[in-house]
């Protein structure tokens, strides 16, 4: 109970999107627009090897042939891909140590609540952080401590430079460039991201965390994350996202690939709080993300997400359960308010025998928002004894919002067992009255009830994130009841 109800009440007072500031940092940008030349320019800026440039160009060629998907339950003005700046980097010297980081940058991180201060490990905050601003990774902490264990945790660019064999082997192995429109786009123009490798049998002793921040106007953010957990290893990975308040829509199209080898486990948690646009639906981030993991024998991948931000979200963290006895989990809370639109869910692809998946999705919609769960459970022919349990609940907070459930269940094996349950209900007036009768204000009652409703998911988050997520839920739902 480190976070008290009073803290929550205090946070509730803070009605504005509190990450909406702009940092005054000098940055280097390339001209807007997308072409082969731009891609060559990005690649050159990053001093990339030829194979990576080839990879990008090939992806670009594929992307040109593709059309933007329209099946999701969202409506938005399609981005003009020639009106986006694809590379923007904070002008930086090479930071040799934390002391070299500019005060303005330190201030930015402080405002975001990120601590790069390695001293903090002594006070119990055991999180290694990679900070990605606009297009490039700015700083990564705890590198030396991790390297003692053979763990690689660095920016994607550094990974390309220092561990090309790993990157070459795994990049695109789970999300191929041909996968979808945004994955292809990302593969062509991605600028940075995080790379993480956990060697055989190593249990990563701390949470690894990447913090994504869009700062510059007119830019898109296209980062890639690649997490490879070698046999028998374990890692818990956290991801946070914020952006300044702007009237324009900015595009975020990321790719995340997870590889869990035999007996490995990856826990991937996201608290997504991109700027959602103002209360009239102006501005906000388009969050079109492809996240997928593959499980080898006895491996486990667990996705946990708390989605409160973005104007439009299009995201389906998925698990390919390739190895026998592998396990996939998806825990999600998606909150939409005002004019936000979210179409999110998961795909569980059962290929191996005795594979198991669990899906717990909690949608909360307020204001005039639309919130859809879209999930696929696919049992292939060889997936003997596969098991799936899905629970998708929707909570309605206003009479102008929409909550939708679109599960797809495909089964080709007669020994599989699939259970899907979904409910949609209104936040109980009786519950609110009960709380009020005990002296609790209606705003707080709602926050209590919603947090209770999301508990199964919030419990999956590491402690520090859970507190942040609780606060976020309360803030996001402010003025949601109509």
């Amino acid at each position, binding site marked *: 109970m480190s976070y008290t109800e009073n803290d929550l009440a205090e946070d509730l007072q803070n009605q504005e999107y509190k990450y909406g500031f702009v940092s005054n940092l000098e940055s280097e940008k390339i001209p807007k627009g997308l072409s082969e030349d731009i891609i060559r320019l990005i690649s050159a800026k990053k001093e990339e090897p030829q194979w990576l440039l080839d990879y990008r160009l090939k992806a670009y060629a594929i992307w040109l042939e593709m059309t933007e998907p329209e099946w999701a339950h969202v409506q938005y003005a399609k981005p003009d891909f020639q009106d986006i700046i694809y590379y923007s980097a904070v002008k930086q010297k090479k930071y040799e140590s934390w002391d070299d980081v500019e005060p303005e940058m330190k201030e930015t991180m402080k405002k975001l609540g990120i601590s790069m201060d390695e001293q903090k490990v002594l006070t119990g905050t055991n999180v290694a952080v990679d900070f990605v601003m606009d297009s490039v990774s700015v700083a990564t902490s705890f590198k030396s401590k991790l390297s003692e264990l053979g763990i690689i945790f660095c920016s994607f660019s550094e990974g390309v430079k220092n561990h090309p064999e790993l990157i070459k082997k795994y990049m695109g192995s789970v999300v191929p460039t041909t996968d979808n429109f945004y994955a292809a786009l990302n593969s062509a123009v991605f600028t940075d991201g995080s790379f993480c490798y956990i060697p055989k049998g190593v249990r990563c002793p701390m949470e690894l965390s990447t913090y994504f921040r869009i700062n510059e106007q007119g830019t898109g953010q296209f980062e890639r994350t690649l997490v490879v957990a070698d046999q028998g290893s374990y890692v818990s990975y956290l991801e946070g996202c914020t952006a300044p308040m702007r009237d324009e829509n900015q595009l975020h199209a990321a790719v995340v690939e997870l590889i869990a080898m035999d007996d490995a486990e990856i826990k991937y948690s996201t608290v997504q709080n991109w700027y959602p646009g103002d209360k009239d639906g102006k501005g906000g981030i388009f969050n079109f993300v492809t996240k997928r993991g593959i499980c080898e024998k006895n491996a486990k991948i667990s996705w946990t997400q708390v989605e409160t931000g973005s104007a439009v979200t299009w995201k389906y963290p998925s698990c390919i359960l390739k190895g026998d006895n592998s396990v996939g989990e998806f825990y999600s809370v998606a909150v939409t308010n005002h004019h936000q639109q979210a179409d999110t869910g998961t795909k569980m692809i059962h290929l191996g025998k005795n594979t198991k998946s669990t899906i717990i999705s909690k949608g909360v919609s307020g204001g005039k928002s639309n919130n859809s769960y879209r999930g696929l459970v696919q049992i292939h022919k060889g997936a003997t004894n596969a098991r799936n349990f899905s629970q998708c609940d929707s909570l309605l907070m206003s009479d102008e919002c929409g909550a939708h459930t679109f*599960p797809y269940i495909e089964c080709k094996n007669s020994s*599989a067992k699939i259970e899907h349950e979904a409910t949609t209900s209104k936040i109980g007036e009786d519950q609110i009255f009960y709380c009020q009768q005990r002296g609790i204000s209606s705003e707080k009652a709602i926050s209590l009830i919603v947090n209770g409703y999301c508990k199964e998911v919030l419990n999956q988050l590491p402690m520090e994130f859970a507190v942040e997520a609780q606060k976020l839920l309360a803030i996001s739902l402010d003025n949601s009841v109509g």
Partner: protein
Amino acid sequence: MSELLNSTEIDLINTNGYTGVLAAEQKQKASKILETIQFPTTRTEAWKYTRLGKISNKKFSIQKGSVSDISEYVISKDAYTIVLINGIIDTSLSSTDLPEGVICSSIKDTISTEKLNSLVGKNLKLENEIFHSLNTQNALDGSILLIKEKTILEKSIQLIHILTGEHTISNVRNLIVSEKNSQAHIIQGFFSENATESFTNSVTEIFVEENAHLTLDKIQFEDDSCYQVSTEQVEQAKNSTFTINTITLNGALVRNNLNIKVIGQNCCTNLNGAYLLKGNQHVDNHTMVDHIAAHCESHELYKGVVNDKSTAVFNGKVFVRKDAQKINAFQSNANVLLSDDATINSKPELEIYADDVKCSHGSTTGQLDEEAVFYLRARGLSEKSARKLMISAFIDDVINKIENKEVKTFVFGLLQKRFDWEI
């Protein structure tokens, strides 16, 4: 798209066309759509799991068939019967003694009251709907049943559709109107005799008016080489109750579109379905309950057993419009897979825009409980009969929703015929 029919036949329909209730404008509209429309592919969300190659790569023709003995197809012995062969009413086989309070005629007759004219095609979407357009353009015949105000029908009315011949197409078009305070039970049976690779494209438009109670039992038992696409387009006015039980037991490819618009308050809608498949059958049930008015409830239960290389698709949608508060909608789909070569695709959907609602859906896919099978065997049942018993227990939930005894008995008879069940 018109390649589905020979061009001479289209001319035949157009020149021999009738001046019945299906207005010429609608036929023209449908023809226009058919000029450019393509068959949907699996990229079309509504057809994601059903490939239409079997239908689209064939040429069908209109044939006037005949059947001498219909006793095998009579579902209820205690009902008024209308027989349609290849989509055309056969008056010689149909009842002549229809009761008072019921208007029964053919859509090609010019009984044309203003009311019926305004109802035909009222809710049927033609844009992007190839089968609806095909039916509208080409329907030669079909029944109109109008249950007059305050009429309480003691006996059921059964529409017996029989498909015959090779590569025959039947574009049958029915209209059922249950007027204010009326009550009726209607049966639609789809059968085939000496039919191979023939195709029924049926559209039934149904209007359940204020405080009317209408129950429809639909039995599908065409040959396992035949195809069927059938649509029930339903509209419910306030305080009405509509129940439909769809039992699909045979057919190579069967697609049911059940679209129910609930436009009045305090309505009750029940949708039940059972499908038992074997061989290479493919059965696709698409249902949509569109709650436009408040204070209504809908209950949906679909259960299926798939064996061999068959495929079952369930896509049930509950749509609650913005002002349709206080809706209770429940939807459930349960499947048993008996073979590793069989496939289940289930997609229960909720799309909800009102806040004061209680909606839920559930979908399960699994096997027979082996423990229970073992238990039964330990009590002396053979494995085969133990399994049969378990399957019938599973599917009975739905069959028992059929209130009419005659229909229920007939369904059990079919189950025995096709699956060698004993009851």
